[in-house]
């Protein structure tokens, strides 16, 4: 069976992981309710998108 000849240094490990970083999701603010929401998504808190009510949410929420 093939086996690693040498242990990889922490430097090698770091180099391998240099491309693993995740980018943060963009967050925008809902113009209707001011809550944070994902851009191009219907606002999860008030259910509006581009000024239209898309999903009915209760006032109680």
């Amino acid at each position, binding site marked *: 069976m093939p086996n690693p000849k040498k242990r990889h240094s922490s430097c090698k490990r770091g180099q391998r992981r240099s491309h693993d970083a995740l980018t943060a999701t963009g967050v925008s603010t809902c113009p*209707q*309710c001011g809550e944070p929401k*994902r851009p*191009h*998504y*219907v606002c*999860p*808190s*008030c259910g*509006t*998108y581009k*000024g*239209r*009510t*898309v*999903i*009915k*949410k*209760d*006032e*109680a*929420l």
Partner: protein
Amino acid sequence: MRHNRDEKRFDRTYSHLKSMLSNMTNDMVMYGRIRTTTPKAKALRSHVEKMITLGKDGGLSARRRAFAFMKSKAAVTRLFETIAPLFKERNGGYTRILKVGNRPGDNASMAIIELVEGPQAAQAAEAAPKKKAVKKAAPAAAAKKAPAKEKKEAAPKKAAAPRKPKAAAAEGEAAPKPAVKRTRKKATDTEA
């Protein structure tokens, strides 16, 4: 080999795919708006719009071609008599896809696909963001509204309990939990 074929099969056989798209097209015609995953909505869009184009033709041949795909007399009738006339003035772009976030459970991207014209669109446009009363008045919405309301009323209670992520509010909750589990698993793995 399936080089350069861009159709999405959704892990279905061709006949399964056809009947799924046909059923979803019927639902679009009957209800004007459906909620599904984003890739399915995007695949459906093209089929719905083709059917509406046939509906605008209005002839017997077009009707038969529509029926060949939709296989529902009720839906074809509604398409030709109610839906297609709404789009007389519009050249394509009959549907709208709105992304609504990810589904709890499998984290699938969900979307609402709706006809641009028609009762459900008019309703949404006329109602100001927080006026729910206007919508309740509409009969089509009433049926859907009742169950939807119940769910939403129940949602906060469930959100309070640690399990059952349901509404959008639960998204925040759902996220940390798997993370906790993962770290625990990792920890045990490394220990062992």
